[in-house]
């Protein structure tokens, strides 16, 4: 984790420099006091100072005081990455397939990550998610959900 914290410090420092540069392009003064660029610029300076301090701290503190690795175990890391991949898939599918269907797929993809191996239960939960989201949010609460391919079959209005 020592290396990871050093990387975090560098990334945040670079982010602060980038934001500071972007903010410096905006007017920071106004007739009375401050303009629109004032706050972001000084906040970027604050972020830069604290991230530099974090970086120095991560360099100075001995490695034994940090957790040995970023992921406690390999399986845990695989689960997190699988979940992130599922999120990405859901986002990509949300417009073409619609929100209820993509969330049903996301549910089906997520359940095994949390240990479910019962495929019947997974399929049933995914189907319930599809209709649950449609009925509760789409029909009952009137949220204009993107329905994608299901627009004709399950109309919102």
């Amino acid at each position, binding site marked *: 984790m020592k290396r990871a914290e050093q990387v975090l410090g560098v990334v945040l420092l670079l982010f602060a420099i980038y934001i500071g540069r972007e903010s410096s392009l905006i007017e920071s003064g106004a007739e009375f*006091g401050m303009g629109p660029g004032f706050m*972001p610029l000084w906040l970027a300076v604050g972020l830069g100072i604290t991230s530099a301090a*974090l970086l120095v701290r991560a360099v100075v503190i001995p490695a034994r005081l940090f957790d040995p690795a970023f*992921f406690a175990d390999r399986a845990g890391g695989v689960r997190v990455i699988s979940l992130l991949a599922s999120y990405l898939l*859901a986002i990509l599918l949300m417009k073409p397939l619609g929100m209820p269907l993509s969330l049903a797929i996301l549910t089906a993809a997520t359940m095994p990550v949390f240990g479910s191996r019962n495929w019947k239960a997974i399929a049933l939960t995914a189907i319930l*998610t599809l209709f649950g989201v449609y009925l509760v949010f789409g029909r009952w609460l009137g*949220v204009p959900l993107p329905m994608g391919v299901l627009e004709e079959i399950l109309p919102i209005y």
Partner: protein
Amino acid sequence: MEALQQLMMGFSVAVTPVNLLYCLLGTIAGTIIGALPGIGPSAGISILLPLTFGVNPTSAMIMMAGIYCGAMYGGTITSVLINVPGEASSVMTTLDGYQMALQGRAGAALGIAAIGSFIAGTVSVVLLMLVAVPLVKVALSFGPPEYFALMLMGLTTISGLAGGSALKAFLVTFLGLLVSTSGMDAFSGHPRLTFDFTELLDGVNFLVVAVGLFGIGEVLYTAEKTLKLEFVTTTIKNVWPTREDWRLSWMPITRGTFIGFIVGVLPGAGGTIASFLSYATEKKFSRHPERFGKGAIEGVAGPESANNSSTGGAMVPLLTLGIPGSGTTAIMLGALMMFGLQPGPLLFQKNPDFVWGVIASMYIGNVMLLIMNIGCIPLFVKILKIPNSLLMPLIIVFSTVGVYAVDNSLFDVGLLYVFSIVGYLMRKFDLPPAPLVLSVVLGPMVERALRQSLTMSLGSYDIFYTRPITLGLLLMAFAVILWPLIGWIRQRRRTGTAGS
């Protein structure tokens, strides 16, 4: 007398069937949320908030207050039965509550926790009423400079008291304030930090950040850990305390109530610190401190009273000044603004039915929670057995649709997943999430107050040190910033002296 009349009016609002229903839903949801490890009141409120869209603000706030109070009650169940705190403020309860369960006294531990929580919760609402009315009168004289200083103090205090590294908390605060500046500038209309995304012209909605950090971010963290819950195999009986239990518990409950309320009022402190302080106090006051950690009922009664009492305390700055002191109340503040209400002293004048309706509902909520937590514990234990493989996808689905429903924007859903990664990384790097949410909510208000102050003074910064209240608050904020630095220098000196 005035407060009593207003409270009566509040009760007339709170006892309408709709508000009673929302109060009941909030307390049930809060107890479940509090009991489930990994989901705290912040996550619960942000995930369930979209369900209140279209509901009137009073009912929505009654439900949120119910969740907040309920979560404090619910956290006890897991602490006692599985030695895992349902949420952070129940950590201390695990020490003696679990030991009591192992000795076959789970019922007594849960009973005294519920009764102590009821007493503390109710007294804290009385204290809230007593403190709020005079504080509102003072706050009405505040101008933009005082508000700027007050918010700055709130932000620095929550960073200073966040626990862990103060450096990390300040870093997170800067990050949150930067997020809050994204979008079109309210004064000049100039776009800032939008990275050419037109969707960011309206800024980042606080709910996206809150749900990302506390909701889906927590799901990612849970996926890595895969917590397995093991219950104490005991039947829960004799929930009502014995005479001896009462004798041992009444003072811890009383002390916990006052500690909790005072700590709750302080920005950044909240239920967790209140319960820690209460536990330490009880151990110090006890004639037999060696019993603590081995099933002492005082170790359950005090901290549980303190964390419930802190909810009433936390509502003081939120309702009277419009300044939240914790992540949970920051989400409540953001929600109120979404409903078109401006929290602060004027709320008491412009919307007394709202404020007093919410306060009255907190009394009712505490009664509901007492009944539920005495009578329905086995039911909540059953709910705890819902597997993560079902619960986690449910959280993802609710969070995703809920965030989409705010602005009907798929961009917000994408941003939600980005903030969930941020939330996960923050957990990994031990960066506190509460200052981030608080600064996202307070950021625009801080900037507005600063710019209004400078307009008032024609651009002169003198305005911040020529007004005594402003100066006092700013000095306090600087003291909080310097405190960790002084501590660090003193520690270095001590280490140096010891070394030489």
